[in-house]
């Protein structure tokens, strides 16, 4: 009889969880729209509830960003010190604080920051410090747009959160440049990309099969060996795309791995707590016909 009771109770709990989960799944259609061509999986190490970032990959990704992307794309929300946060590309267990991390200080020093002389107010350029933000390649948004055919290159700070598919999408896009499909009427200053969002129907001859993807203003930014990696990794386009996608995924939410680890503890705690509460519930209600 006790077993039967437990099974019943379990069924009820499961029914409840199913009901709640079902309702939350009903939320999903909002996300499905506009994702006709799902991106390729990058097989990233940080996926899943236990996934963590590969620090070597983040460092390589940062290098690709700094040497290739950063010449057009800003990352306004990033400070150099963020690179040395726990879990970040340059975190060092010996560091006193992220701001005092030696790698980050050296990296920041490589850039020149526009500032003023604190005594005279005269504009000047000084070496970067770990407290500085990543410098924006353009003095203002208008200049960025003017230099890029009218549309400013998007800021990359939260790019992995701002596109459906996240890091997979970035990886796919960077490796998605392909030969222009036959019959596609290219627009001037545009490039064809298999994973760019859009609808190419108006640009294809009547009746022809419409290729996936869309137009993108950015020309293919990567070529094999473009970046010299500091480890033994071969800098293929595929590898660089993967690395920079991982780096941007980290930068979009630098605390995600720590949060997942906290979450595991929270779930284990709640699970035990739920068990204890359930036992108390059964004991208090024992003998009550209801």
């Amino acid at each position, binding site marked *: 009889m006790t077993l*039967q*009771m437990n099974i019943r109770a379990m069924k009820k709990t499961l029914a409840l969880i199913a*009901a709640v989960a079902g*309702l939350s799944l009903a939320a999903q*259609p909002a996300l499905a729209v506009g994702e006709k061509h799902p991106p390729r999986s990058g097989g990233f190490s940080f996926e899943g509830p236990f996934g963590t970032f590969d620090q070597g990959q983040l460092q390589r990704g940062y290098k690709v960003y700094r040497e290739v992307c950063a010449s057009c794309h800003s990352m306004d929300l990033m400070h150099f010190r*963020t690179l040395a946060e726990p879990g970040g590309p340059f975190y060092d267990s010996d560091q006193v604080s992220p701001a005092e991390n030696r790698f980050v200080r050296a990296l920041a020093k490589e850039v020149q920051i526009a500032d003023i002389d604190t005594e005279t107010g005269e504009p000047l350029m000084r070496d970067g410090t770990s407290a500085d933000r990543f410098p924006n390649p353009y003095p203002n948004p208008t200049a960025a747009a003017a230099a890029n055919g009218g549309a400013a290159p998007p800021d990359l700070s939260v790019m992995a959160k701002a596109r459906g598919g996240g890091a997979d999408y970035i990886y796919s896009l960077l490796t998605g440049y392909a030969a222009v499909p036959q019959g596609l009427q290219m627009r001037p200053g545009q490039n064809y990309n298999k994973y760019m969002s859009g609808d190419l129907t108006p640009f294809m001859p009547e009746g022809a099969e419409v290729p996936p993807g869309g137009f993108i203003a950015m020309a293919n930014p990567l070529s094999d060996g473009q970046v010299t990696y500091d480890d033994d990794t071969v800098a293929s386009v595929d590898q660089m795309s993967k690395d920079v996608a991982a780096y941007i995924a980290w930068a979009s939410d630098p605390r995600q791995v720590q*949060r997942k680890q906290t979450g595991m503890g929270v779930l284990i705690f709640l699970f035990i*707590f739920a068990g204890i509460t*359930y036992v108390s519930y059964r004991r208090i*209600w024992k003998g009550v016909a209801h």
Partner: protein
Amino acid sequence: MSAHESTYVPKTGVEKWLDTRLPIIRFGADYMSLPTPKNLNYWYTFGGILMLCLVIQIATGIILAMHYVPNTEMAFASVERIMRDVNGGDLIRYVHMNGASMFFIAVYIHMLRGLYYGSYKAPREMIWIIGCLIFFLMIATAFLGYVLPWGQMSYWGAEVITNLIGAIPVIGEPVLIWLRGGPAIDNATLNRFFSLHYLLPFVIAGCEVLHMWALHTAGQNNPVGILIPKEREKKDTLPFHPYFTVKDGFVIIVFLMLFSVFVFFMPNALGHADNYIPANPLVTPPHIVPEWYMLPFYAILRAIPDKFGGVVAMFASIGVLFVLPWLDTSKVRSMRYRPTMRTFFILFVINALILGWCGAQLPDAPVIGDFKTFILIDGDLNSYLWLTRFTTAYYFAFFFVIMPLVGLRETPKQIPATISEPVLSGGDAMTAAAPASAEKKG
């Protein structure tokens, strides 16, 4: 069950002194000893969950407001700064953001439970009406809050929704400008939305006190739906504490586990990626959609070809809930004993889910396959436009046609004389999810 005798006896001198001046301890103690029908099932635990949701939203919201900057130039970056530089800021923000979704999951279950067991019928109309008011305020608060991060969906969502006001004849245009604080959505709009988003939760908290007061006065409904006569009170009710505190507590913890899965592992799964693109008045997103919990109402809005008509229908879809107690002609509260109505109820739930699905789709997109059928008035029959219209029609028919008619024509099942009776004779379909079983007696 209604307003029960107080059993609180002040013991210490301080308690006695306080009890004759401000009987606040008595108030709390009376709540704890409130006689509660012992057959309440798990669906009845969502009230407690909702209370917790409100507390979580207010607590996290107050901390967020300490760091947030309501300025169009800085709002987006300030939200990201909270997640990057404020201690625990990523958790606070994600709890608040997902908390809104959790709040709505719980409130929808809570409302459907009330609908199923007839908790809106006499003498509980005021509990229901105040509840509807809370729901309406929740929608307003959630909408205002969604604007604050100043992403693309924030901006364009605000644009679409405030434009609805402009559809009202004659006064629409001036009221629209007054609400926005200018001819377009801008800094003035963001500032007042922030102010109101901070205000409304406290109005909700006030309404919740009224909701509880009305509940305390009229007494809890229960799955059998009958009023418990005074003489049965001892047999059929249990004090709220510890019986229901522990039961609610257990479900709250299970609910928190679901909450945690979203916050810690998939914090952005319920949101739209476009809201991480800073607001840009010059670039319209290809597809403007509200948060998932507004989708059924958004679908109703779009189902009507006339803009003002759509606005009226959308507000009517919420407004109808307020008059629900007078649309239902049945004397029987619980749908457990109304098999016909139960079927319509299940259809209503499925219909509402389809409406939500439709709200997220492009109206012209085909529902099944990629083929065209025929043009009916202004759209292909195989399109979300028409699916939305059919489901909208059922939504209103449920309240205005089915509810009054079924109540007059149906033959309800035999209603037990006491709530203990079905416990001893076994439950029925809905009790699969209810803790009512004969075996438990032993």
